[in-house]
């Protein structure tokens, strides 16, 4: 593990799945492109290790023999090394076993019924469930996935998990709304949503977090991408976070992206056990608009938590230069008034970019952090 000085680097979300994983877990023989990518990745990272026989079988066209679960294990190993190679201090497995962040958690719970697909935009859809009974956890999830990471990671593992507010916001609220009397207007809807969020937090997320902690998980990122959808419900985000982490001992971070953070403050600051805000900034940073200036607000509120500083725009292929990254870090440090609170990460998961582009961005990010560190430790006179 790389020694941690100023501006340690961390992953933040999922990565694009390599072609060899997609074909392999479907039991299809790898084509020329997939074989080439697998060979090149293993030559560069030497990730296969104990799974070298599975790698060889995939390269031999025997995907079916390998089996989907072993292919995912191999992919998880690949992503660990992929993230460790540039020098990240906190890593996960690129969410190699996950295809999304909503359906899987919901399927680990009782009380939900999937309703069908809703269009997000154009011809992109997502599956949406309704809560029709009181939420109940079937069994804690992500635990085996974490154990694999813990066993194989060389850097510090950090587990991402979808937060209760987002799971509630992305579901239809039937059960809790039906318990409200009278016309189901704004007031009733909010009261029902509060019950739903807190129930999810207490009955499903907290037991899962407890199981993960018991399995050795020390750093847990609670993802709340829906937090910015209804700014006036920021207090519900907080209530869910506090209920989910109540009495648990781990390092919790909260990831929110593509939101107007000012609208969520100061309500968000009541998330008592949140040690780090992992937010997106680079996406909104341009010569015309300072994307990091919002950090002043945290300083004004006297909030002294760590910041997971998004320095890579995950929606553009253009690779940030190390100098650009360093400049962003320097600017953020100035706004916060304390460089020691900064972790460096992409804005969000890089899965919208190819693995080649994501790798170049991550390398630039780590190099940029080193430049920023050098600038502080050896300032020019």
């Amino acid at each position, binding site marked *: 593990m790389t020694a941690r000085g100023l501006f340690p680097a961390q992953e933040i979300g999922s990565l694009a799945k390599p072609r060899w994983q997609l074909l392999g877990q479907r039991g299809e023989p790898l084509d020329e492109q997939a074989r080439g990518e697998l060979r090149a990745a293993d030559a560069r990272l030497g990730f296969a290790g104990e799974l070298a026989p599975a790698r060889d079988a995939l390269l031999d066209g025997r995907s079916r023999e390998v089996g989907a679960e072993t292919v995912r294990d191999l992919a998880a190993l690949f992503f660990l090394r992929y993230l460790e190679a540039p020098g990240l201090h906190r890593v996960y497995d690129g969410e190699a076993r996950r295809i999304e962040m909503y359906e899987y958690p919901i399927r680990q719970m009782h009380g939900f019924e999937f*309703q*069908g*697909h*809703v*269009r*997000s*935009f*154009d*011809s992109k*859809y*997502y599956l*949406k469930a*309704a809560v029709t009974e009181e939420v109940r956890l079937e069994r804690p999830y992500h635990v085996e996935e974490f154990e694999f990471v813990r066993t194989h990671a060389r850097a510090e593992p950090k587990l991402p998990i979808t937060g209760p507010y987002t799971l509630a*916001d*992305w579901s*239809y*609220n*039937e059960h809790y*709304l*039906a318990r409200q009397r009278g*016309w*189901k*207007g*704004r*007031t009733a*809807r909010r009261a029902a949503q509060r019950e739903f969020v807190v129930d999810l937090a207490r009955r499903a997320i907290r037991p899962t977090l407890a199981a993960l902690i018991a399995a050795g998980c020390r750093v847990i990122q609670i993802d709340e991408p*829906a937090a910015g*959808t*209804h700014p006036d419900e920021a207090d519900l985000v907080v209530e869910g976070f506090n209920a989910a982490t109540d009495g648990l001992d781990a390092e919790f971070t909260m990831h929110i992206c593509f939101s107007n953070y000012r609208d969520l403050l100061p309500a968000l600051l009541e998330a008592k056990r949140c040690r780090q805000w992992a937010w997106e900034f680079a996406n909104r940073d341009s010569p015309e608009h300072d994307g990091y200036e919002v950090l002043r607000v945290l300083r004004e509120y006297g909030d002294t938590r760590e910041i997971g500083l998004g320095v890579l725009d995950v929606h553009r292929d253009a690779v940030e230069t190390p100098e650009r990254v360093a400049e962003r870090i320097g600017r953020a440090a100035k706004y916060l008034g304390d460089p020691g609170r900064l972790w460096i990460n992409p804005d969000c998961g890089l899965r919208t970019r190819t693995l080649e582009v994501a790798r170049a961005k991550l390398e630039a990010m780590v190099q940029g952090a080193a430049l920023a560190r050098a600038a502080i430790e050896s300032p020019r006179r």
Partner: protein
Amino acid sequence: MRVRTGLTGPFPRSETLVAATRDLDRGRTTPEAVEALYAAAEREILALEERLGLDTITAGYLRWADLFRPLAETWEGFTVGPLTRWFETNTFYRQPILHAPPVRVPGALAARLPAALRGDPARARVILPGPYTFAGLLDNRSGETESALVHRLGRLLGEEVRELRGVGFATFQFTDPWLVVRPPDGPRAEAVVAGYRAIQAALDGGTSIVWTYGADAIPALGVLDRLPVSAVGVDLADTDPERIPEGRDGPSLGLGVIDPRTTLGEDPMEVAHLVRALEKRRRPSSFWLGPGMPLDLLPYEPATRKVQLLRSAREALDGGGSA
């Protein structure tokens, strides 16, 4: 009491259509095959609208990517920009970017209307963006002020109305949620009224409905009451019906009585009770009932189930049942 019903936005795509459009993106089917499914789906929705006895028909607007795209892709002056969240929902639109004062292209919008509506234009509900929402949510790089743009968009929409009136379309809904999310005041409010005046001038006896949602409409009533339109719709999921103030002999009142943010069904007797109470208090000339927010916030099956309310609520009102 006259009560009319109709859909107020796109209907969700069926699971079959969802699968087909995904397959098309992945090159697993042909545009012709998907087109045939669209046409079949439109017929199904028209049949549903008939079964429900709706006064206006829409055929679902299944092909429309978002509220703005049919205009942003056909009028001159626009390009289509980044994905942007549609109010407080988990759905997105592509933000139109306006580079120069927009210019309408005759015939282009009409060609984009669901083909199934052209057979019965008198009953069709043409759904268009309201000028205030259109101006407020686009990326305006044209150099024109927002107020001037609202007025200009109103005039251009009026030209669309005039053209469509010429081929028999009679009912026009202007979806304008920005009016209640960010109520206009001062010059902007005047521009909104002027924009709708331009639309009204082109109506030639047709019906214009302004449909709002996304926020409490009460703070916006000052401007909503001034709009020269046939009906103004408010979403009862966001606006407390008991706070809608008294009125007298006003225009028609539109009520969003189906909330597509939940799969929980609304109670027709409760809706009938609300409508009767508002009739006494507000004294509108008639009511238009429909979904508040766009019904495609639901998957196909729950939407089909929830929309039954429009028939059952009307039956409750016709039957004189009390809640």
